[in-house]
């Protein structure tokens, strides 16, 4: 008994050390991302403007059959597919990313990603140590929820990178918020290692909360892309209208993917996770049915999960109705994510209800 307790405390302390270490490494990654952006600003490209003002379509759009030259004789390969944006959409090429094609910038970007991987692993170890110290899933209070959430968010980012998606530019923004989240977690939200009250003993809790955290992390990436879309879209609009954006805006915006790519990416991310979010709410309802005798009772947490769900449903609906594509739909997506955040911070800290197990006094 005493021995077990001692091990637990040892693990809990180890977890705290790991979390602090990961914050240190995240900080290094943060500076590396900044260096990437700074070095990247040396390259001056104005692809957007030239694409927007070009008279003739780009040569690459002309159809051709790709032919491979092998030992003098031409070996025919599959016909080449030419793609173009849907009618009415702008055909702007994607920016090269934060490094802006600058070699040194790219180097710092790679360093930043490596550091992110490292700090992710350290933080993950911290979360696992925490879980081991309390002998349960590490999300019994807001401190644990926060450290798990940031770990998963970084994990999603790294997974998208591994899938060769054009997301490295998100890095700086992501690490900044991760540092904020962790800072808040270790100061305001910190709760000592503790077991759960009986109402939280349920495997539905594990399913419900883990999917909620994963959805949040993915929705967060979607929200950042949406925000970037809004900025990039204004930038492109300004250029298309003959305006001249400032130097800083030009430098940053030229390196981001095109607004059409950002919009599409944000939509895909949000749409892909929406069924899982639906499932999360249903799993929560099943858990509530087991714990409190009713599967839906309009508890504030349930209500806000519902509001978030409806807001995302609005967004998807708006996208499928032609008139609401683009900026308007993007605003809905941001409101929907704000609802998610409010459900996490706002409801736990200010509203309460039966879900108030935040552990913050």
């Amino acid at each position, binding site marked *: 008994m005493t021995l077990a307790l001692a091990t637990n405390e040892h693990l809990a302390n180890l977890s705290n050390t790991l979390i602090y270490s990961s914050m240190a490494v995240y900080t290094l990654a943060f500076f590396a991302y900044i260096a990437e952006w700074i070095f990247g600003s040396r390259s001056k490209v104005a692809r957007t403007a030239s694409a927007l003002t070009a008279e003739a379509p780009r040569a690459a759009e002309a159809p051709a*059959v790709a032919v491979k030259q092998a030992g003098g004789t031409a070996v025919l390969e599959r016909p080449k*597919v030419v793609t173009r944006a849907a009618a009415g959409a702008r055909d702007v090429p994607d920016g090269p990313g934060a490094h802006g094609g600058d070699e040194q910038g790219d180097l710092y970007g790679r360093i930043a990603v490596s550091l992110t991987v490292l700090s992710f692993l350290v933080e993950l170890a911290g979360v696992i140590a925490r879980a081991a110290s309390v002998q349960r899933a590490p999300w019994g209070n807001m401190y644990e929820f926060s450290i798990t959430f940031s770990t998963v968010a970084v994990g999603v980012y790294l997974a998208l990178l591994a899938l060769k998606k054009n997301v490295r530019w998100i890095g700086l923004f992501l690490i900044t918020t991760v540092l904020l989240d962790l800072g808040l977690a270790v100061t305001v939200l910190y709760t000592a290692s503790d077991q759960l009250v009986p109402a939280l003993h349920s495997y539905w809790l594990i399913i419900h909360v883990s999917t909620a955290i994963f959805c949040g992390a993915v929705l967060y990436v979607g929200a950042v892309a949406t925000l970037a879309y809004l900025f990039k879209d204004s930038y492109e609009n300004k250029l298309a209208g003959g305006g001249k954006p400032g130097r800083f805006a030009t430098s940053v915006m030229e390196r981001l993917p095109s607004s059409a790519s950002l919009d599409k990416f944000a939509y895909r991310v949000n749409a892909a996770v929406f069924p899982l979010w639906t499932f999360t709410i249903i799993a929560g309802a099943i858990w509530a049915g087991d714990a409190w005798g009713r599967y839906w009772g309009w508890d504030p947490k349930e209500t806000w999960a519902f509001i978030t769900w409806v807001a995302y449903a609005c967004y998807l609906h708006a996208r499928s109705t032609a008139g609401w594509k683009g900026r308007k739909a993007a605003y809905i997506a941001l409101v929907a994510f704000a609802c998610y955040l409010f459900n996490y911070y706002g409801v736990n800290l200010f509203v309460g209800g039966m879900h108030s197990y935040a552990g913050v006094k």
Partner: protein
Amino acid sequence: MSDTRSTDVHSETTDTPADTGTSTDKDLTEAGSRLSTAPVETAMPGSFGGSRAPGALGWISWTAREVIGWARWFWRQLTSMRVALLLLFLLSLGAIPGSLIPQSGTNAMAVQAFKDAHDVRGPLYDRLGLFHVYSSVWFSSIYILLFVSLIGCIVPRAWQFVGQLRSRPPGAPRRLERLPAYATWRTDAAPEEVRAAALKALRQRRFRAHVTGDAVAAEKGYLREAGNLLFHVALVVMLVAFAWGQLYKSEGNKLIIEGDGFANTLTQYDDFKSGNLFTADDLVPYSFTLRDFTGTYERTGPNKGTPRTFKADLTYSEGAYGKEKKTTVRVNQPLHVGDSKVYLVNHGYAPVVTVRDGKGKVVFHDAVPMLPLDANVTSQGAIQVRDGYRNAKGEKEQLGFGAIFVPTFAGAGQGSMFSQFPAADNPVLAVNAYHGDLGVNAGVPSNVYQLNTKNLKQFKGADGKILKARLAPGQTMKLPGGYGSITFEKQVKEWAGFQIVQQPGSGWALGGALAAILGLAGSLFIPRRRVWVRATTGADGATVVEMAGLGRSESAKLPEELGDLAALVHDQAPTKTADPDADPDREPDAASHVPAAEGVQTK
């Protein structure tokens, strides 16, 4: 290759050079038509009645036209995407106040406190139904309108979808190179051969394909629409199941002391609530006995006193004469019997007490449940001796004892009757005593945890002060004047509070929810797309093959898929070897394919 268009058989009569742009746009719109069943927005009306014939008959028919016209207009508005979106917005907005203002359904006390604290806002909120948002008229009307809109939307969409399944994909647009994905090459194979190869390749890939004119038209991904319809239908199922559950549900509470039992009939409940359509016959017949309740608590550390386990061991039997079975109910693990679920919701202590009369005869011996007041289970209760008691003079009378019970007493001389810990480590029962009329026989429901002291006289001690004592297990308090005594026996039982809920339709709600997820996944992950393959004879006698793809949503997979299909067709109709276009060093001349006048993609 600019000769491709000259052989196009899809010539439109309205195709004048001046409006090539708009006519191709129309052409493209046609190609993308019926790719979904989303309703089209219709224009606003003027007057529906039209011109009015003279006389009463004229007025009647005009009014009828007018009424029907407006009704149809209203219906169309209600079932339009725009209004559906608006209602969805309103629904989420409307849900917000209920999460911020206390609700009478979940926390009636907080509502009262709010009303007491706010003289102006209290009545106003009350009038607006803000204390019961989710059953208020305005909230209900939003979701009822939404669901009417939903049904009004599903039915025509389902018909449309059936129509699409029975019809064939539309023919190829004239300008295939303007579609999102496009490939072309020239071959020696005859156009018919190319089309046959394309048809075969497409059907292999499970496209619905057919030849129209000089092209093959194909479509795939109908499951997207099916999924979408399934999702919206599932929403309706969920709502109906929820409403059904509310109407037929029943919910009651029962406090059971260890060793006691319960049979599921109305009379056995301590309190009972039910939906409007519930009848007593709907109760599932079964009975159970509480064998043992166990609660454990954190003993050390900052969370000392926090509950760790609560469990109730039950013996139950289904039906009137079912076989006895054993089970354990925990906070998260209710007992399921048919539609009925038994939840463990609270617990407390029931000290065993004996009351004797002046002659020493036992007039009361029972475990008395005490109601917890705080987290450490400081509890309050009343011991009521209702009949069988006669006082020293031999008169019939009743006895009552007000009691405070603490499972862990701080120790003699230390503080008040507040429990220090939730487990029964050092139980103490504090009592005072009354005699007279308990006021329980008048047929008025009475509180078993509190004495009605209106017709009771409190016992006084020899010193003239109120008689009271703190009893440890085994101790007795004597009542003055030969009235008898009360003993706290060396036994403290525990009781468990159960909530027994019956909510039919939850199976349907769950089924609906799962179908919704399935449908949603189909609707979001399955791309619906069309592919056209056109083979025509060029000016030089070679066959020009053109392939193009169009999706409902811009999918990254579309060009990839088109490439795969093109490779399949290309195997059967390889590129003409002497083709100058096949020269890899030559940059294809863009202008020859897309005349500048039509380069509208860079808007």
